[in-house]
């Protein structure tokens, strides 16, 4: 039993309970005020965090050079993994952001009998992460249909592509069919569960995991789960929900009139999303913004070719050559090393005996 994931799980259940009971008495709070507040906190918090990062300078260009440098003309440079041009950096960043390239390199260390190590490609984390993020993105984009009337064509295309898989039984006697199944929602749910199980069962990962790693995962699993429930298993009043969401986007909801007939499940779903938005800027989820600013990836590696300037570059105390020579001049002369300054000829003081004479 791990207190970190238990506390996170309980927190998410508590949030669900809050939304369930709260929405009965205060639908406007959960349907209108909190979503608005959440969006404001998200936007401001996100911007504040990113601007906070941007405020700190990048004093040195310390890129991770993951490939052959640009060097002699006959040596093939790794233009993407060790870029020396802006185009190279853009491609490198695009691959990082869109395909998680660095993560794709992941290997797993294994110690074999006989004392040999192997480091083989381990792509499951990469697959899981990619599935998770793309499913999330698709789901998110798909949901913009709630904020347009009529639904734009491009969103409809996306929905059709997403729901290419249909489950229908059409007989004379039985006519049964689920609405088009959105692959994205199921993949999102499955990938988030995978990422959780990975944290639970891979001992190293369990050891490093904090409550703040489990909490957002449970929250997202909760969002996906309530979404799936609403779409496939319980009837929700989609017209009323769309009326609410259209009201939110057009600011008509500021009258705080909530349409009738919206189920508690929807409020739980919406509350989870609101909590996620509020939580986002204060958590590790900010990797979404940070990945663009990561100094080891978003700069060129040609540090010897183009000078990078450091806005704070204080003068330091240096042991100068002059001081060095002063210290070692005689030894240097004796060893036949060139010096800048020959010592002044010594004025020979007469010794005691000489004085007597």
């Amino acid at each position, binding site marked *: 039993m791990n207190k970190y994931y238990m506390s996170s799980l309980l927190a998410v259940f508590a949030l669900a309970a809050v939304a369930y009971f709260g929405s009965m008495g205060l639908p406007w709070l959960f349907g209108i005020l909190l979503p608005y507040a959440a969006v404001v906190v998200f936007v401001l918090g996100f911007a504040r965090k990113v601007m906070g*990062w941007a405020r700190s300078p990048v004093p040195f260009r310390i890129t991770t050079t993951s490939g052959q440098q640009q060097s002699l003309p006959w040596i093939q440079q790794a233009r993407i993994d060790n870029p020396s041009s802006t185009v190279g950096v853009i491609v490198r960043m695009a691959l990082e952001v869109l395909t998680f390239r660095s993560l794709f390199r992941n290997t797993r260390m294994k110690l074999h009998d006989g004392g040999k190590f192997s480091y083989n490609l381990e792509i499951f984390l990469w697959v899981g992460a990619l599935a998770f993020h793309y499913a999330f993105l698709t789901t998110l984009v798909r949901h913009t249909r709630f904020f347009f009337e009529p639904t734009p064509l491009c969103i409809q295309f996306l929905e059709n592509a997403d729901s290419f898989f249909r489950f229908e039984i059409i007989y004379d006697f039985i006519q049964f069919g689920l609405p088009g199944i959105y692959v994205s929602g199921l993949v999102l749910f499955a990938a988030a569960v995978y990422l959780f199980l990975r944290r639970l069962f891979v001992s190293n990962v369990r050891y490093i995991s904090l409550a703040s790693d489990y909490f957002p995962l449970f929250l997202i699993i909760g969002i996906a789960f309530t979404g799936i429930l609403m779409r496939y298993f319980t009837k929700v009043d989609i017209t009323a929900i769309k009326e609410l969401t259209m009201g939110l986007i057009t600011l008509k909801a500021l009258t705080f009139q909530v349409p009738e007939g919206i189920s508690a499940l929807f409020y739980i779903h919406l509350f989870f999303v609101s909590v996620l938005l509020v939580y986002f800027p204060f958590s590790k989820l900010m990797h979404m913004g940070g990945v663009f600013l990561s100094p080891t990836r978003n700069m060129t590696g040609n540090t010897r070719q183009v000078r990078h300037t450091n806005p704070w570059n204080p003068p330091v105390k240096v042991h100068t*050559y002059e001081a060095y020579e002063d210290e070692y001049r005689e030894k240097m002369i004796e060893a*036949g090393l060139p010096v800048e300054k020959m010592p002044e000829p010594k004025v020979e003081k007469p010794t005691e005996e000489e004085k007597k004479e």
Partner: protein
Amino acid sequence: MSDETPKPDELFGKIDYRTPAKGWMDTPVNIRKGMYCYASNPKSVKNLGLPNARAWNPLEDDWKLPENWQQILHEGFKERLDKFRSIKIFMDICVRCGACADKCHFFIGTGDPKNMPVLRAELLRSIYRNDFTPTGKIFGRLAGARPMTLEVLKEWWYYLFQCSECRRCSVYCPYGIDTAEITIFGRELLNLIGLNIDWIATPVSNCYNTGNHLGIQPHAFKDMLNFFVEDIEEITGIHVEPQYNKKGADILFITPSGDVFADPGTYTCMGYMLLFHYLKEKYGLDVTWSTYASEGGNFGFFTSHETMKRLNAKMYNEARRLGVKWILGGECGHMWRVISQYMDTMNGPADFLETPVNPITGTRFENAASTKMVHIAEFTADLIRHGKLELDPGRNDNKIISFHDSCNPSRGMGMFDEPRYVIKNVANNFYDMPANTIREQTFCCGSGSGLNAGEDMELRMAGGLPRANAVKHVHETYGVNMLACVCAIDRAALPTSMEYWVPDVDVTGVHELVANALILPGEQDRTTDLRGEPLPGMEDADEG
């Protein structure tokens, strides 16, 4: 190696990858003999004017810290968050995916979970959250925050000196989080309250005074190179004449002082001397050494940014004083990280130098257009490519060679093909190690970043295991008996590690191999290599 260091199979048997039952925040640090370096000599710290010099012992309870040490650390942390975007971002965005966990050679060699890069960083992040983030302040441990205590400080010190800043983990991190930068930052904080290690502080102090880590004074530096002159004459019949502090030379040559001091680096040093002699005789190349800038390495880099800058300044200062055209740098790892990613920014612009052009081949080193400093592997590769060196690779035929990519020229520069090209042209038997252990995925020798002391031998051997294991593989598969590298710390550390893990493999610098193969004008019939060992086919030749 001290008697207390466990035998290889004992050390191997000790590795345990199972995670402890207790969480890491509840597992107090156990500072163990063989795994840490001695505290710094206060004299060295004082000589550099660094804060809080005092005698202290890591094994004692009382570290004799300044009274307000927590405040010093807090303010130091804050100041650096405002100075380094990297640190600020790295503190915030780690998602603890665990991709880095098994990439660290110290983790692989010890199984200690706090050697997983992510946890090493969490040691600092936990304090960051507590001191600087609202969630950390409100939720405390649930948000992964904890207050700074003496226990935590000791943990910092112990594990920040179990990271060799090799950056292997950074290659795999989806956000490019660079543990080396975090370690550098953490060590800089520790430096504020005088928690340095002597293997770093004393070389830094030496280097500040004499120009090199070993404290070699100018006349002695010349004497040491003169020994090599004699050895070279004995082996090749050629009398080389290195030049020192020569004004108006074309090129200033700087290499780590380790190569002047200890085998097998000394053979690499002889290699440079022979190469320069050859180029002078044949093409009139005018290279000078400097006794003032007689250190390529920079242990200041392992202390603080300021100390690094203070030591590094000598390179450009000396180049300016001597009026050379550009600087050539020898084989060294962290030296090249400093040159590649810091020097020009800290101590440049070097507008008093020219964009390096190889006067023999006419090649302009565009990639060094701003720092004006060329790596000798680039330089030699260019010479070979243009057919400017007369070589007999057969002289290296008794060596079956593999190449160890040193961390810093790999992940802080990207120099992979140049040294391989040179080796393949001066020797006939070359085999790379498995792909996931070389180039940008290379493993540290286990002793980088100032950890190559004697007292932490167990740590070094454990950290050296992954590299040695890959060498063992090519040793068993191809009969590799010589490990080439371009790093002075490697040349100091790998022989010990090889003797420990793969006893039949020796270590060499690339330019030792070059000099063995180089056919010098007017040389005598060479019967031995630079080490005085018989050349292939000369095993029965008379010794004199």
